[in-house]
């Protein structure tokens, strides 16, 4: 069978099972892979080889480690302290709760590498607060969902590791490449929040003196020091030559454990979960994500075997002359992938297909990585498959369709950021170059 026909079979099985029959996404990918193997007459043993060796990879350990670290931070009161700090800084602006949600999601990004950890933690605290202040449930959900992908663009991030792995480039450089786009997103989201929500709000009439403001910020700062030390440890350790990006995950967990123990002894009330419980939750979340990664690995391998990468390379070199046009083509593929599947699965599937062509066209792999990561992060809020919106739906109780309507301005702003990242390489390469 021709590679493209097989790709069609793969998509048919995968989307059919996942969307029409509610089969868990990872298992749908696994079944679609088996179907391709069957139609092409390849041995199913390939699936088994990759099922083990795809997970048997050290950098992949960052997934459980950063999920675990995020869970400890979430349940030990660190996240709440972070929200207080940002509230003390910008809490008097109009539309302030929305701004706090955006900034805290970004700040929470330095604690965790997972978008869903960000939304469940920050959204879980902020959505009820916003609702109390009169924000509509669907807007709260849309805002929390949109802000949550900032957690991926602000390092450390699991998808950044996945890309570094697939492209064999430095993970820390990949991480730094999405900081620029993240800053632009933050400004854009704050603007949207002001226009949608802030303009409607009354200006706060409670007078506050400058010394009191400083005092409030100072108090909040002190209680959030443990959260602020975390990035210092992670990046100090990586750039100070003590540990690698993957090992940083373990160090973050150990730091979190020590902090948790301290809280347990001195401030028991701050803890919202038992240690064993949160460890178990982190392990199960890890498994739910990694089984998906594993079956995506299998499908990626099988897709390589049937020669789709070569077919795409031949197509692109025959029809696309310039790097700029190729990037449009690539962006459309990412956007479609981001609409349909999980970010980690998408990276594992697409990077091996497109990166060889991209490098052949003279595109810097770090820049290409930033484009992929920003584009696929937007995928968290582009319907129909938008994990952040699903999660926000759970937290807010709003209807899916209403959230999708309210999230659209954020989607459009994010797509503009995708275009900027694509055509102004400096946005993504400036910070990595500065640090190199």
């Amino acid at each position, binding site marked *: 069978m021709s590679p493209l026909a097989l790709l069609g079979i793969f998509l048919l099985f995968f989307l059919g*099972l*996942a*969307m*029409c*029959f*509610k*089969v*868990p*996404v*990872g*298992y749908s990918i*696994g*079944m679609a892979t*088996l179907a391709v193997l069957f139609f092409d007459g390849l041995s*199913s*043993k390939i*699936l*088994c*080889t990759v*099922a*083990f060796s795809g*997970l*048997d*990879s*050290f950098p992949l*350990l960052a997934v*459980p*480690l950063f999920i*675990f670290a995020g869970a400890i931070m979430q349940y030990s009161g660190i996240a709440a302290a972070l929200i207080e700090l940002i509230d003390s800084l910008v809490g008097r602006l109009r539309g302030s709760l929305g701004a706090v949600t955006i900034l805290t999601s970004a700040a929470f990004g330095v604690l965790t590498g997972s978008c869903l950890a960000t939304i469940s933690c920050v959204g879980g605290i902020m959505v009820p607060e916003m609702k109390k202040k009169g924000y509509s449930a669907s807007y709260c959900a849309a805002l929390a969902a949109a802000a949550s992908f900032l957690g991926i663009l602000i390092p450390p991030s699991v998808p950044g590791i996945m890309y570094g792995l697939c492209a064999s480039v430095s993970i820390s450089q990949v991480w730094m490449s999405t900081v620029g786009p993240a800053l632009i997103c933050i400004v854009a989201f704050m603007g949207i929040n002001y226009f949608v929500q802030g303009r409607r709000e009354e200006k706060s009439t409670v007078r506050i003196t400058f010394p009191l403001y400083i005092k409030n910020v100072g108090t909040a700062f002190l209680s959030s020091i443990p959260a602020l030390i975390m990035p210092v440890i992670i990046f100090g350790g990586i750039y100070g030559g*003590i*540990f690698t990006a*993957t*090992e940083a*995950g*373990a*160090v973050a*967990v*150990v730091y979190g454990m020590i902090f948790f123990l301290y809280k347990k002894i001195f401030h028991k009330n701050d803890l919202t979960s038992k240690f*064993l419980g949160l*460890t*178990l939750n*982190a*392990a*199960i*979340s*890890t*498994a*739910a*994500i*990694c*089984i*998906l990664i*594993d079956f995506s690995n299998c499908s990626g391998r099988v897709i390589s075997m049937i020669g789709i990468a070569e077919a795409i390379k031949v197509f692109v070199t025959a029809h696309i002359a310039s790097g700029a046009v190729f990037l449009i083509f690539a962006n459309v593929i990412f956007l479609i992938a981001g609409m349909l599947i*999980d970010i980690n699965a998408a990276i594992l599937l697409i990077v091996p297909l497109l990166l060889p062509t991209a490098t052949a066209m003279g595109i810097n792999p770090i820049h290409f990585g930033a484009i992929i990561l920003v584009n696929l992060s937007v995928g968290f809020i582009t319907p*129909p*498959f938008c*994990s952040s919106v*699903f999660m926000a739906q759970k937290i807010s109780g709003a209807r*899916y*369709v209403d959230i999708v309507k309210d999230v659209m301005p954020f989607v459009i702003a994010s797509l503009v950021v995708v275009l900027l990242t694509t055509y102004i390489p400096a946005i993504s390469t400036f910070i990595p170059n500065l640090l190199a």
Partner: protein
Amino acid sequence: MQKKSAEKTFRKIEHGIVAVENIFLVVSLVAMVGSIAIQVVCRYLLMISSPWCEELARYLFVALTFIGAARAFATKEHIGIDLVDTIAEKKCKNPQKVIALFNKLAILITFLFIVLFSYLYFDYLQSIAVHPQVSASMHINMLIPMSSILIGSILMAYHDICRLFYSYQTNDEATESA
């Protein structure tokens, strides 16, 4: 009445298995963190090499993923798309019935896949056993870490089919304990 007590026994057995899985997951996640931390300490502070740490962490991770994925069936924590539910709620007169039917179908399809995968993986382990591989650092037989995938798959099939069984027993979703 007899149906009810059979269900009770089944749930009790599953509870026991889940408890064992929970212990395994917590221990392996903490051990993973520990072995990577030891690697950093060995290299940076003690100035000695410890290649076994990395390997141990990787194999724990494989086991954690597959046993954890099995455990995730017990509390329905797998990542899925509930587009069907949304459509059913909007278009159907009796959405609960349609959703329940699709749930059963999803469980059944997943079950068939897992059983097939387990069979293929068992077959694969048998061919690997013909020429045993030994791990690079700890020098253990690779069948040990590899078999965690088979164990996990069998547990997945078990937990998944339990859901199907319970769905015929009671309509009470709330009895599914977390």
